[in-house]
């Protein structure tokens, strides 16, 4: 076995990749000398005689006359005691199946090629199996790309990628005022976003010298910490989570947000909800607190259009909408989504209830359409279903206001000059301070509150 050598069909000319066996000049069992002609093969270009690389005994002819053999496939096995294996024979003897010659038409030479140097006709041709995937890289990357930016000598000027510079210019930010946490002090998108949001550090406190969590958005390369197996789990950010993250960041980065709160006695509204549920006109329509809050918001937006506007960066204009696409934040199976009801201002209370329940049930089934999810002008988010009193919501990007309402709690409250247990809820209104100031926001919220405190205002305002 160790003396057995195989002669692999070598490179025979220029660019050819296979040859046909024409005639053998030896048979199994024959003694052969070095350079003795073993076989004639025909290529595209010529009939060529192949001389034996070894002195020894022919063990087996591995291809028959008429067979087409790919370059690099073994054609004969020779027992050659003491012979050094040639360049064309460095793999152990394989089964006859490996050496099976190809059909003349259609078969790619690479499929019949052993995993080492394959000869082709000019020079040596492609080496080895045509790889179907890249070679495996080491898990740690010792390579510092030569093309990495060389921030150390920045000549005193801030370092930032062109899109970040553009954004800074749009925002009127001098990059010299921004602290960069990218490698070498590069100012990343997140850095700029944080600067714009007024926070001293970005949403996730970074380790100095490392990019914050949203590094992929900032477009910088982050040196990954060496993972400690078992102590942490890594999940790729995709789909809705990715979208939500981007939306939240965009929201924070573009709009200066402030928030006002109002805690109310809404017992009259909760009673109304009960009565409406039993009312025959609302049969089948699922009336909830949310329905009444939505109605109150729609009414208040009539008088406070600023809460239903948006800031156009490109044209530097305030766009006031004359319709309300009312968005509702829903916890869907894959994460938070905010579908909206188009032209909600035109809906009757009953239709509003139906629309809300349809919207939320579809969202919970992850069946919101793209149309559902775009074009919103104002958003309501019910954080009460999670059991909390209040929250500071983040604006849906492109909107001027978002109202959160918490759980309705039985609380001691002033009532008719005394203290009684009443249904109390806290409303939180976050707003874009470019479009709405504190006074306007407060007035809006007060009006919403007025409706919810005394729903007979609905009749007055309808």
């Amino acid at each position, binding site marked *: 076995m160790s003396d057995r050598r195989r*002669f*692999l069909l*070598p*490179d*025979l*000319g*220029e660019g050819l990749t296979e040859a046909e066996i024409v005639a053998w000049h030896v048979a199994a069992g024959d003694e052969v000398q*070095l*350079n003795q002609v073993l076989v004639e093969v025909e290529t595209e*270009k*010529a*009939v*060529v*005689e*192949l*001389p034996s*690389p070894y002195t020894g005994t022919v063990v087996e002819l591995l291809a028959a006359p008429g067979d087409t053999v790919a370059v690099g496939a073994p054609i004969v096995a020779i027992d050659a005691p003491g012979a*050094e294996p*040639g*360049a*064309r024979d460095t793999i152990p003897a394989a089964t006859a199946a490996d050496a099976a010659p190809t059909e003349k038409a259609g078969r790619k030479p690479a499929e019949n090629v052993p995993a080492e*140097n394959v*000869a082709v*006709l*000019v*020079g*040596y*041709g*492609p*080496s*080895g199996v*045509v*790889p179907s995937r890249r*070679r*495996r*890289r*080491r898990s740690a*990357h*010792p*390579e*510092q*790309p*030569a093309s990495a930016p060389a921030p150390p000598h920045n000549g005193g000027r801030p370092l930032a990628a062109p899109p970040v510079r553009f954004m800074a210019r749009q925002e009127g930010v001098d990059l010299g005022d921004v602290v960069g946490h990218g490698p070498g002090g590069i100012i990343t998108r997140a850095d700029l976003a944080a600067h714009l949001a007024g926070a001293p550090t970005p949403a996730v406190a970074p380790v100095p010298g490392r990019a914050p969590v949203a590094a992929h958005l900032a477009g910088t390369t982050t040196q990954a910490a060496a993972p400690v197996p078992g102590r942490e789990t890594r999940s790729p950010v995709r789909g809705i989570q990715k979208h939500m993250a981007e939306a939240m960041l965009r929201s924070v980065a573009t709009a200066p947000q402030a928030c006002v709160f109002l805690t109310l006695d809404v017992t009259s509204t909760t009673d109304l909800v009960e009565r409406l549920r039993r009312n025959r006109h609302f049969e089948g329509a699922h009336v909830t607190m949310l329905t009444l809050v939505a109605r109150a918001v729609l009414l208040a937006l009539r008088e406070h259009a600023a809460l239903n506007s948006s800031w156009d960066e490109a044209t530097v204009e305030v766009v006031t909408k004359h319709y309300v696409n009312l968005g509702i934040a829903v916890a869907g199976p894959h994460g938070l989504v905010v579908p909206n009801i188009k032209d909600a201002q035109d809906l009757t209370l009953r239709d509003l209830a139906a629309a809300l329940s349809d919207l939320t049930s579809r969202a919970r089934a992850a069946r919101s359409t793209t149309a559902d999810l775009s074009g919103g002008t104002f958003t309501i988010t019910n954080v009460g279903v999670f059991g909390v009193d209040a929250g500071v919501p983040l604006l849906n990007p492109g909107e001027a206001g978002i109202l959160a309402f918490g759980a309705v709690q039985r609380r001691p409250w002033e009532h008719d000059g005394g203290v009684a247990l009443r249904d109390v809820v806290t409303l939180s209104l976050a707003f874009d301070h470019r479009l709405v100031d504190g006074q306007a926001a407060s007035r809006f919220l007060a009006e919403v509150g007025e409706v919810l405190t005394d729903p007979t205002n609905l009749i007055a305002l309808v």
Partner: protein
Amino acid sequence: MAIAQARVPTERLAEFVHFSGLVQLISVDGQRTVGCPYWDLVGDVDAAQLRDLYRDMAIVRRLDAEAMALQRQGELALWAPLLGQEAAQVGSARALKPDDFVFPSYREHGVAYCRGVDPVDMLRMWRGTALSGWDPVDYGIATPAIIVGSQALHATGYALGIVLDGRTSAALAYFGDGAPSEGDVAEALGFAASFGVPVVFFCQNNQWAISEPVRLQSHASIAQRGQGYGIPGIRVDGNDVLAVLAATRLALARAYAGQGPTLVEAVTYRMGPHTTSDDPTKYRSRGEEEQWRAKDPLARLRALLHSEGVADDRFEDGVEAAAAEAAAALREGVLALRDPEPAAMFEHVYAGPHALLDEERAAYERYLAGFDEMAEPADPS
């Protein structure tokens, strides 16, 4: 082995140049010819030296055949065989002095052998482990030229350098019958004649430039081409090693004597393919090959040696053994040649430092270090 230079007085050189026939000293059937004045140039060549010439040709033929076999066995990427041209190469190379300098094309393995180059080193460039194989200065022969005809200018320039140095030696450029069609050869003839430099332009007219017959290159003989430049041409039977030796001695003598360039056309035949990638059956006939086989250079010298009783079976066996030994040494040496390391790719591009190259080398080394397996890179095709 060195053959002593024939001493022919300078005044006589012109008469040889004026001999307008084909220079032949040994007929096809191995007889000494009568009446050719070139005999005077090889009067010193005795039986021992004839046997040496034969041995040289036999070993060169055997080495060439071994290289062909190695290519067919996948050990060389390519080989350009010289089969049939042994006399043209050995006869001319044995006329050279050690301080003469040769600028070959890519087929002059026999010349390199005579200059003392190790045959294993000759095969490095054909195996692909290097672009050259030896130090030109050590052996007085440049790296083979692949751009056809380019070396004719190099030889001319080198010869100009000999003049500037005030030395008595010569440069010799080898090329085939296709090369004179190239502009560089024409320019070399022009420069050499204009400056009167000691250069010999040695054309092996082996009748074929790949598939193109010599008649496609020129309707006049190549030896005549020098006339336009005032360069004398000698047309010699390239399969007659003695005639080639004589013609080359003459050309070199003219060069040493300050008589300027000479163009030698050695008429021979490329018995094998252009290279191992070529198939001559596509463009020439077996009949033509047989005709030239009858004029084989080794056969005719063997016939002469036998007819003059200066070579016996013992001699032939000795030659065969020497040839087999040389072939075995070549095989062993070639199989042992190691592939160069990737870093070698970046060496010798410049003499001085080069920032971009340093950067690229370092980056590539880092890149390679990033892989778990060090497989060969995939072929770009």
